[in-house]
């Protein structure tokens, strides 16, 4: 293995690299979800019944599972983003190393709270 490849591998096995990947993928998926979300809410333009009939579609377990995944992505993107803001805007503190764990924990808690309430 060349030095460059070894270096690449070491950089990518770091938790901060995974935080970067999670932030990118969650951001991308949330951007793709937004038009769908806005479309769904726009159903209310045709009256309450139109929105209601869409919402009854969301009762299916698969949709609830997808919703939970989106909530998890949103919470992860927010927690990871707050971590980045703290790294960039606040002076360095030792506890900043623990921010990754805090961000991961907070997003899992939000996802779980949603799942427990939605089922």
């Amino acid at each position: 293995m060349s030095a460059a490849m070894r270096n690449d591998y070491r950089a990518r096995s770091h938790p901060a690299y995974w935080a970067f990947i999670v932030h990118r993928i969650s951001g991308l998926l949330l951007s793709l979800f937004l038009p769908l979300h806005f479309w769904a809410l726009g159903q209310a333009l045709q009256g309450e019944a139109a929105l209601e009939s869409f919402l009854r579609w969301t009762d299916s377990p698969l949709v609830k599972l997808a919703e939970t995944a989106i909530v998890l992505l949103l919470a992860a993107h927010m927690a990871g983003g707050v971590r980045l803001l703290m790294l960039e805007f606040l002076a360095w503190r030792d506890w900043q190393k623990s921010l990754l764990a805090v961000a991961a924990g907070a997003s899992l808690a939000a996802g779980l709270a949603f799942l427990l309430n939605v089922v």
Partner: protein
Amino acid sequence: MNVRNLVLLWAAQRYSAMVLALCVLVHLATMIYAVRSGLSAEEILGRTRGNAGWAAFYALFVAAVAVHAPIGLRNILSETLGWRGRSLDVAVAAVGIALALWGLRAVWAVYA
């Protein structure tokens, strides 16, 4: 894009993120609370129709996301896919405008 504009994009991304962090916290709390007894159009519209406070909140949310998401997409498209130059800037600006208009339409739908 020149360095000055890149710095402006960087700043816009961070300041919109600060607004979004607060909006998302409120959104997550509202969602987790709202789904407790199942979602219904009556319950959602009962909360939002004619409520200027919620409408202002969601309009701010949409404005912040219409700034934030296109800049993030621009970073991904340029760094991961290697798309650079004016065509990229025009494309992501169009995404931002579309998100803003489409989002405000949704805000209006649940307010009016």
